[in-house]
């Protein structure tokens, strides 16, 4: 396992403190109000949490991915919605970090690192979720600009972001359609922010529709090259999937802790229910799952840092294991709490709702398994 250095330990200790003192007391309220928690965003920005995502030359702290993921796990354990705004800075900026030119990086990353601005990842469309090939948003060259038309759905932090990494197919003069990525800004005419969705969970994390009505972007907005779209999507999502894995692991941790404390205090048939094997097995399975999540995350983060060609298979497997585990652990936590677990009085009800998105977003777990199978097939020819 990766050993955190002294600075990283100090950072994670500070994260523990703000989780306990500031985020946890607000978590239930954020869930009930379902509004973007700007107060918490400000605290995270002041503490430099967003800077953990970036290199020092762009205003970042220059810490490794392991520290970033552990921070995310800790925050997700107290408020998954709050962890979304952090995870999203990582995913939204990934196209710029991985494929952007120096000018784009200097323009965007320091603002993201300070928390002054947020960035959204604009990929999914009403009819193109798992099937990225089905994207119908188009970009057509007009003079030294590109004109983008189409619409996006389920865009995390869409209504609070200043920057957008938007995926569109560039229509060539020969009729070719090349998936490409553009860096757009909120104030550009033709970028229309739609409504926020009402979701089952992750209340307080805004999920937005975007409409492009002759949105004109300069040529300098192209991230990477025309036609790099698929490459950018997959590499960005490799990072995104580790973020999701860390968040899901936070939910497992929270479910385990709350269920254990409750089970030890709840007396039935004259004994704390923690004494019953039926409960012990659920608690033990949560612990086994938590250990598994930690190991998979640690390994995948190491492969990410090493720029391993095998990363994709491991990132997908990590996302599958952590998200499935979060679903199971939070469901079991509700079961242990019984009727109380079904009520909003205890946070396990929120954990359960928040967990359901993890096997769905950033590539459903079925899509992840497809990715893993294809990687395996490549390894065993003839």
């Amino acid at each position, binding site marked *: 396992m990766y050993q955190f250095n*002294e*600075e990283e330990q*100090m*950072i994670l200790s*500070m994260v523990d*403190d*703000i989780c306990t003192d500031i985020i946890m007391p607000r978590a239930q309220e954020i869930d009930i109000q379902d509004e973007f928690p700007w107060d918490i965003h400000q605290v995270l920005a*002041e*503490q*430099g*949490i967003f*800077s*953990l995502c970036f290199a020092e030359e762009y205003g970042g*702290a*220059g810490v490794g991915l392991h520290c970033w993921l552990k921070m995310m796990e800790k925050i997700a354990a107290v408020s998954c919605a709050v962890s979304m705004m952090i995870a999203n800075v990582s995913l939204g900026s990934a196209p710029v970090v991985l494929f952007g030119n120096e000018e784009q990086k200097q323009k965007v990353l320091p603002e993201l690192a300070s928390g002054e601005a947020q960035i959204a990842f604009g990929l999914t469309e009403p009819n193109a979720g798992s099937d990225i090939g089905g994207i119908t948003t188009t970009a057509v060259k007009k003079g030294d600009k590109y004109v983008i038309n189409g619409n996006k759905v389920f865009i995390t932090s869409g209504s609070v972001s200043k920057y957008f990494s938007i995926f569109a197919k560039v229509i060539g003069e020969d009729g070719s359609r090349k998936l490409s990525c553009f860096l757009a800004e909120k104030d550009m005419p033709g970028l229309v922010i739609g409504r926020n969705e009402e979701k089952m969970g992750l209340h307080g994390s805004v999920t937005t529709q975007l409409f492009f009505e002759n949105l004109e972007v300069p040529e300098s907005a192209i991230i990477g090259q025309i036609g790099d779209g698929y490459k950018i999507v997959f590499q960005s999502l490799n990072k995104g999937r580790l973020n999701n894995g860390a968040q899901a692991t936070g939910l497992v941790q929270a479910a385990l802790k709350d269920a254990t404390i409750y089970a030890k205090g709840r007396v039935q048939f004259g004994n704390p229910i923690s004494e019953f094997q039926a409960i012990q097995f659920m608690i033990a399975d949560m612990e086994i799952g938590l250990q598994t999540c930690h190991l998979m995350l640690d390994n995948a983060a190491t492969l990410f840092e090493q720029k391993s060609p095998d990363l994709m298979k491991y990132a997908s497997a990590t996302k599958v294991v952590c998200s499935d585990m979060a679903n199971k652990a939070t469901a079991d936590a509700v079961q242990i709490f019984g009727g109380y677990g079904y009520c909003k009085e205890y946070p396990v009800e929120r954990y359960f709702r928040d967990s359901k998105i993890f096997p769905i977003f950033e590539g459903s777990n079925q899509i992840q398994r497809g990715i893993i199978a294809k990687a395996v097939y490549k390894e065993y020819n003839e």
Partner: protein
Amino acid sequence: MKIVVCAKQTFDTEAVIALTADGQVNATGITLIIDPYSEFAVEQAIQMKEKDGGEVIVLTIGNAGAQSAIRHALAMGADSGVLVDDPAIAGGDSLATALILAKALEKLNPDIILGGFKSSDIAGAQVLPRVSSILNLPNVNVATHLEWADGKAQVTRELDDGVEIIEVALPAIIGAQQGLAEPRYPSVKGIMQSKKKPINTWTLADIGVDAGAVGAGAAKTKVVQYTLKEARKGGRIIEGEVPDVTKEVVQLTRTEAKVI
């Protein structure tokens, strides 16, 4: 203004304290942190620097492990640290602590000295008054507010029934009570910068303290025994009809609780 904060490292305030088989406090597995009262003083010092400029030096006695308490203060915004680390210090009492701090303070020559008025672990509240005796400097403890100007400080002191405001000439030694300044969380930037800030380690010889004047041999007090507080017993519910229950409760207040 040169501000020196005398800071102590202590057990995490949420740690569960246990005793070893031979009756000593068991430090195994306990997270060490900067003492909360020291932290109030550090925050006050940083706010003073932010307002008027100057520098904040954190002074700590301990082994290399105590550097983490200094690092925490540096991450909050202090400028440098001094760790007095010497094997001869082990086993000393508050008299020795005061002597070492006083000698180190003479060398640092500060304009004002801050510290916790007591520590959260031993809570002897001995050290700063003793330092002030040795250095012949004014000392105000249990401080909840501090104003300073023109070589003077006005210190608000908490009393049982109110506050008193005391004026002292600087340099003076101010002992922080909770409320003096709400400690900030170190930011990521502060944490990353802290690793570039110097922590100087001094031995007793560096500050001119004779090894024989400190340590177990020089201690004027001796801890005879540690005993943990008795664990709180759970309540008892007496069931039955109200008149019967009432009788029994009254009876028990005499025979068992012995409060009547």
